[in-house]
């Protein structure tokens, strides 16, 4: 990340932030109270080299699409910079941006939705030429459109140029969309899930086409996808995103052969392989990507991470989620017995270094007993590593948690990874806290 941009760098992204503000209630807006924001892109830096294919891989809600759009200036950045051909995209005015867009184009996921059904293929593909004022001469437009169609394999062009999108198959439509994207000779193509709506039998053809175009026209791609399998084949480098952050980035071969981040490992294990000797993987992270409006403390992945430890960012709601998982597995009668001991767990939603679990009655001693039993039955649960101490008093169980340490993107072998497991400092800090805890409990 700290690499110096050299001549080979096409796009240089530094500390990029894109926040969406959340629309609060009517009252909030009336009294001007901020309802908070979603950090869709949260302080991201990377370089895109000329002629490379960088894969931006993540699940829904990871911010990958917003990052792609911020790069093109389609979404305004909240902070940071995107240097492209000597200009900072995030500082350009709307009209300056329009001139820049000739150089950087976008291919969308859904070919059916990205073509206007009332426009012929020829009109759609030629549209950028008139919008950008390249030419208005009909013969010239038609000639350039025909060339572009032939290049993307819609040949002979006369057969397609006067057709409507509804006359074309999904793959043919995506070819037309690509023709529209390349007709202005861009240098950068941001392709947002270009093949995920297509049938298996067609995907390879579109990827082949994109590889050929890259060779023939010296294109650079940002390939946005949730599909690690196509990314493996298609990309030179991969960036794995989780809740607005790049958690791992490096050469494809290194990411796939030796994934570092527990999240990358989980993603790779979860992909179904067409091999019946393989069973469905069972040791996957629990739960789902959390609400981006209220991201977890510390490392965003810690509530689902099987290797999380002292410094990863433990907070009260982690305990509530764990209790829920425990109760879901119990017989209803057992659950009722444990639930009756605890009071309202809504208070566990607030972040903080202390957990105050209200007991349903009495001093909280019986609730402490339930929690201690939970710990004894499941001692390997990572949450317990974040607990400094538990005690019962005045109708509550007080749990003191370790302070979170925010992870940083650090080099690890050939890649960079944002995980405390690869951060010597964080590991030492955890060791120190472990020793402290041992002394306390003696």
């Amino acid at each position, binding site marked *: 990340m700290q690499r110096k941009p050299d001549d080979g760098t096409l796009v240089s992204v530094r500390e990029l932030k894109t926040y969406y503000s959340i629309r609060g209630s009517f009252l909030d807006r009336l009294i001007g109270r901020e309802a908070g924001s979603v950090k869709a892109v949260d302080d991201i830096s990377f370089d895109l080299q000329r002629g490379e294919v960088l894969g931006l891989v993540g*699940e*829904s809600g990871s911010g990958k699409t917003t990052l792609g759009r911020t790069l093109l200036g389609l979404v305004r950045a909240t902070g940071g910079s995107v240097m492209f051909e000597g200009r900072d995209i995030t500082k350009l005015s709307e009209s300056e941006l329009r001139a820049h867009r000739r150089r950087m184009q976008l291919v969308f996921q859904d070919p059916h939705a990205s073509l206007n059904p009332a426009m012929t293929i020829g009109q759609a593909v030629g549209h950028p030429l008139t919008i950008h004022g390249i030419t208005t001469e009909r013969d010239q437009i038609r000639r350039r459109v025909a060339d572009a169609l032939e290049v993307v*394999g*819609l*040949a*002979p062009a006369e*057969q*397609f140029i006067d057709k409507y999108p509804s006359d074309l*198959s*999904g*793959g*043919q439509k*995506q*070819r037309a969309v690509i023709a529209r994207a390349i007709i202005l000779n861009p240098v950068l193509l941001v392709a947002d899930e270009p093949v995920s709506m297509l*049938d*298996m*039998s*067609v*995907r*390879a*053809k*579109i*990827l*082949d086409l994109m590889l050929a175009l890259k060779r023939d026209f010296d294109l650079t791609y940002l390939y946005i996808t*949730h*599909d*690690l*399998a*196509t990314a*493996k*084949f298609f990309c030179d480098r991969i960036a794995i995103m989780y809740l607005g952050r790049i958690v791992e980035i490096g050469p494809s071969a290194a990411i*796939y052969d030796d994934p570092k981040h527990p999240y990358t490992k*989980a*993603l790779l294990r*979860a*992909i*179904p*392989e*067409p*091999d*019946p*000797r*393989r*069973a*469905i*993987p*069972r040791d*996957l992270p629990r739960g*789902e*990507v959390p609400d981006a409006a209220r991201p977890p403390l510390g490392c965003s992945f810690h509530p689902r991470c099987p290797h999380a430890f002292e410094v990863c960012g433990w907070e009260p709601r982690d305990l509530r989620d764990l*209790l*829920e*998982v425990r*109760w*879901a597995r*119990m*017989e*209803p009668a057992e*659950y009722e017995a444990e*639930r009756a001991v605890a009071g309202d767990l809504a208070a566990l939603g607030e972040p903080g270094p202390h957990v105050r679990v209200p007991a349903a009655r009495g001093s909280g001693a019986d609730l402490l007993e339930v929690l201690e039993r939970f710990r004894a039955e499941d001692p390997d649960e990572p949450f317990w590593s974040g607990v400094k101490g538990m005690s019962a008093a005045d109708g509550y169980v007080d749990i003191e948690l370790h302070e979170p340490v925010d992870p940083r993107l650090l080099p690890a072998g050939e890649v960079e990874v944002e995980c405390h497991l690869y951060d010597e400092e964080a590991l030492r800090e955890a060791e120190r806290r472990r020793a402290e805890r041992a002394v306390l409990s003696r």
Partner: protein
Amino acid sequence: MTTPVLSVRDLRVYYGTARGPVRAVDRVSLDIGAGEVLGLVGESGCGKSTLGRGILGLLPEGAAAGGQVHYAGRNLLALSKKDLSSLRGPDLGLIFQEPMTRLNPLLRIEDHFSETIKRHEPGLSKDEIRRRSLETLGRMGIPPTRFRQYPHEFSGGMRQRIMIALALVLRPKLLVADEPTTALDVIVEAQILGILADLKRNFGTALLLITHNLGIVAEACDRVAVMYAGKIVEEGPARDVFAEPAHPYTRELLRSTISLETTELHSIPGAPPNLIDPPPGCRFHPRCPNAMQVCTWKVPIEVAPDPGRRVECWLHGPEEEIPPGQTAELEREEIAVAEEA
């Protein structure tokens, strides 16, 4: 296989359109055994979703169905609407792709369950309804603390778990799941597939799993049926079919799947035919790398290349049905790239 739970024979489903009838399902036969997971795969538009709905009698207006769907000694296609809908729930369940559109946003999860259970088992006490609902939800990993919440308070994966629990709470013998994980992220998808693959052990339910993803079939299914242009062209144990596909379509579909093991891109030439006027003979012949003369005009006959398997492809005979000289390779003009995708 033990006595099948469901036996489909010669099922035909046609849709009427201005340009003529679309034969979405064309003389399909298949069996599903108790506790068995059967995967149904094919490209989009091959008729797999229509087949799943046709089995449950859930076809839209303007669709006509023929043939037989035997369940518990009765032909579902001959039942009245009322009799059929009384079977849906306690006997036949359905899980859709998009769970949010199937849950009522104004009803608590608790109410979804009590309504479903009461409709089919009106005598059950409130406590019993609650106990059964919580038990089924618990097995799907939905915590009892959230029983009184509304659908919008759950994540996509949780909603799909709730839909599955809602289908299972009546203990159906057969469940049809149409692309149940397509809208989900890959880790959640694997979680849901794990649940579906365990149906046999936990509920004894037979499952028809409709998907376009061969990886899902390989990992979750006992048997697989491959559908092309309204017909099942190959069927057999998933292990055997993946190891040694008998039909060229199955083989090409497997080759074109992009997985982590992929080292070379491969695709099938051409596109699936339109089902108003499908090609004569074998419907795959215009795209088939192994097509012979006979394939262009004579509809292939079902043969069993191995016990427990079947395939409709002249490469596997029966030889006595192929006229002399008709096994010669088909001379074809190259299919233009433009027609491919």
